[in-house]
């Protein structure tokens, strides 16, 4: 049986964004959020977009054992889940981001905003009725 090698974001409650290369991941169901080292940000971006672990290991930028431990943590946190899909290629900018990374792979979990996020009463209003509405940009 082959090792699961391709992953996907575990659920719709897991949202994420990259800010100047720094990945931030939030679990809307728990209000916990996750920050990464520079190499961790690059690996998160790759794995969450369907790049295989094998392709990451092939870059030589990350040791396989370290990568396996990191992926195990992401699975344990419920951020990623194994996927049955064909892998996507590793984009060139991520290869250079990983090559330039200086910190070891790491992910930190934070729960200081959890109680606030879980109960935040965002009003789910229709756009013309009020917030949330971004200034009419178009």
């Amino acid at each position, binding site marked *: 049986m082959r090792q699961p090698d391709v992953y996907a974001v575990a659920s719709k409650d897991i949202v994420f964004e990259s800010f100047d290369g720094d990945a931030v991941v*939030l679990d809307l169901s728990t209000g916990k959020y996750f920050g990464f080292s520079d190499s961790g940000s690059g690996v998160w971006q790759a794995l969450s977009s369907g790049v295989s672990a094998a392709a990451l290991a092939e870059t030589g930028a990350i040791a396989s054992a370290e990568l396996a431990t990191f992926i195990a943590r992401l699975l344990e946190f419920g951020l990623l889940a194994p996927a049955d899909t064909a892998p996507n290629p590793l984009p060139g900018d991520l290869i250079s981001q990983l090559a330039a990374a200086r910190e070891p792979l790491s992910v930190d979990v934070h729960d200081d905003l959890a109680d606030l996020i879980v109960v935040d009463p965002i009003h789910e209003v229709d756009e013309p009725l009020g917030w949330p509405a971004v200034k009419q940009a178009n």
Partner: protein
Amino acid sequence: MSEYGVVIPAFNAASTIAETLASVMAQSLKPRDIVVVDDGSSDDLAGVIAALDMPVRLLRQDNAGPGSATTRGIAALSTPFIATLDADDLWLPDKIERQLAHFAGSPATSAVFCHLRTFRSERPDDLGPESVPGWSRSTMLIRREVASAVGPITDPPGGRGEMIDWIARAREAGLALDMMDAVLALRRIRPGSLSYGRDAARDRGYLEVARFAMLRRARSKAGTS
């Protein structure tokens, strides 16, 4: 002195503002000042408010977000206590009286919040089953000096979550924020909006707020080591 003022940021809230203001006027302790900040509405908010014949000051600004509008309103008040309220939510009549009593018994408290329940626009008596801790604008009553201690309520670029960010900053500043168990405010849910789908503005805003928190932590770590 327990005089208080009210700030209501409003964006296209012409259909709900009258009910919201009525819940303010119905308080067992009347406010000294009520400021509605029109955040660039394109509806007839001003006309609706003018027709109400209530002692309301209406300020206007170009659309900049609810945090910006709230900050503007707070700056326009000079009362020792300041309450904030979304333009479509409601207070129960003893909301402020009970919160001021809480302050009176707890001099170290900087801000007090309360529980809330949801209601649907078309069925005002049909309250949602759950009472939840309302860490939100519509439940908040603060001592005036807290606003300057914590700083402006900042709208995350392109997103929501400005109250989470502000409350997190208040906590990090060591201020005492109390949550009352009593349900004293009601949050409006619009028709057809009960399905809890993905909301890009919410997600984006929350992620920004989380990032801000991590950046603050990194800065304070760098500053103390």
